């Protein structure tokens, strides 16, 4: 049986991992490779690196750090931010990333999803969706959320966009529930359960993790394939290895990491 995935998300800026409100008050958390290895050793199933400055600066991801990560890391990792074309994606994938995640560029031009799927296979193509509930009770997609001054509410319903994205060739959907993001009161299980009902490809929950119970609740309540979180892991509030042991005790199927073998020459 497939394990539920625990996925730390690392915001990358100028070659380092940062935390803070996007585009403001960034504090350097540490080096990319060093943090990636720490999460790998703790049993993270996958890592997402979000190049937070690539997209607003109109440039593609710096492939040098992607390659440094790929040399050292032996778990899968996804790169997000600044990927707007097949060529952008090719550079990142050839540098060693396993997947690319696209968000606003896919909304600007949905055909990009199909182009990436044709070029690299659906398994490489993750579509990130930022979603917020409107006053009429509908969840709708937000665009350019990386920059508060540019964020736009779209008429597109989140569930419709999930369906369209997977029709076009998305191999995985990351649904970031903005209403719960940063609040640490739990994932938006109700929204994710509705997304699950229309999503036939792997679905990753994002936004709201604050306690171990939140991970259990989103796995059991929304049947998501993975749960992504950033600040609770970076701050040390939740330790990945302790979280996975706890989830296993709660009956959630997870992978408990095996210590690297000592070198026996």
């Amino acid at each position, binding site marked *: *049986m*497939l*394990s539920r*995935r625990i996925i730390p998300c690392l915001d990358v800026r100028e070659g380092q991992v940062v935390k803070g409100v996007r585009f403001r008050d960034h504090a350097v958390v540490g080096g990319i490779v060093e943090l990636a290895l720490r999460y*790998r050793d703790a049993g993270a*199933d996958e890592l997402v690196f979000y190049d937070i400055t690539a997209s607003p600066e109109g440039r593609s991801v710096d492939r040098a750090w992607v*390659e440094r990560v*790929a*040399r*050292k890391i*032996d*778990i*899968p990792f996804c790169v997000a931010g600044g990927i707007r074309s097949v060529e952008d994606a*090719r550079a990142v*994938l*050839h*540098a*060693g990333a*396993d997947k690319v995640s696209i968000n606003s560029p896919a909304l600007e031009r949905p055909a990009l999803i199909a182009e990436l799927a044709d070029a*690299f*296979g*659906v*398994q*490489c193509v993750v579509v990130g969706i930022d979603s917020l509930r409107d006053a009429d009770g509908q969840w709708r997609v937000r665009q350019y959320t990386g920059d508060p001054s540019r964020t736009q509410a779209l008429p597109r319903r989140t569930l419709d966009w999930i369906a369209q994205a997977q029709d076009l060739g998305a*191999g*995985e959907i990351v649904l970031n529930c903005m209403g719960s993001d940063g609040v640490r009161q739990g994932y938006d299980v109700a929204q994710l359960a509705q997304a699950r009902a229309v999503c*036939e*490809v*792997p*679905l990753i929950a994002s936004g709201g993790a604050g306690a171990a119970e939140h991970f259990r609740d989103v796995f059991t309540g929304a*049947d998501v*394939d*993975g749960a992504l979180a950033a600040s609770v892991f970076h701050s040390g509030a939740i330790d990945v290895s302790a979280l996975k042991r706890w989830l296993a005790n709660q009956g959630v199927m997870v*992978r408990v*990491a*095996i*210590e*690297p*073998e000592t070198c026996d020459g």
Partner: protein
Amino acid sequence: SSASVVLVDAGGTNIGSVRYALQRLGVDAPLTSDPAAIRAAGKVILPGVGAAGPAMARLQALGLIDVLRSLTQPVLGVCLGMQLLCARSEEGDVDCLGLIPATVRRLQPASGVRVPHMGWNRLRTCSEHPLLDGIDADAQVYFVHSYAVPPGDYTLVSARHGVPFSAVVARGNFFGMQFHPERSSTVGARLLRNFLAL
């Protein structure tokens, strides 16, 4: 001089990742599509991410089909590379190398069974083999695929995603791993080390 391990450059995007994984084990395996270098290598690894049709077309264009078929040293196909070892693939309905007597089938989505099969899944060992030395019965590895090789007498390890399928296959000197050992952490490193020691 001939390298002891070579990676066949058949396209696909995970070649770098496999190469780095071997470097972490102290082996620098060059990427090559040169028939002489492939024939002379002590071990040959055929990686591959992508679709079966374009990959077979590329092997054909490089003149590598008969080269690969005639190899007698240990050969390891990874992910799509394993599927290419089979007789045929439903993906694009294409003839493959014919070294494992199987037809690669599309995984069928079902309730709770998502396709692509993406993530860490448990291995179920079917037989004893030096390739599996030190691998625990409930070890987990990282899979990403939409097509799979059905179980058969060539299956060394099976896994289950809705239905059982081959996770590791062996036939003579040809081996295949459906998952990504280069992305399967400690378990994957051990499997690669075991292959290098064959």
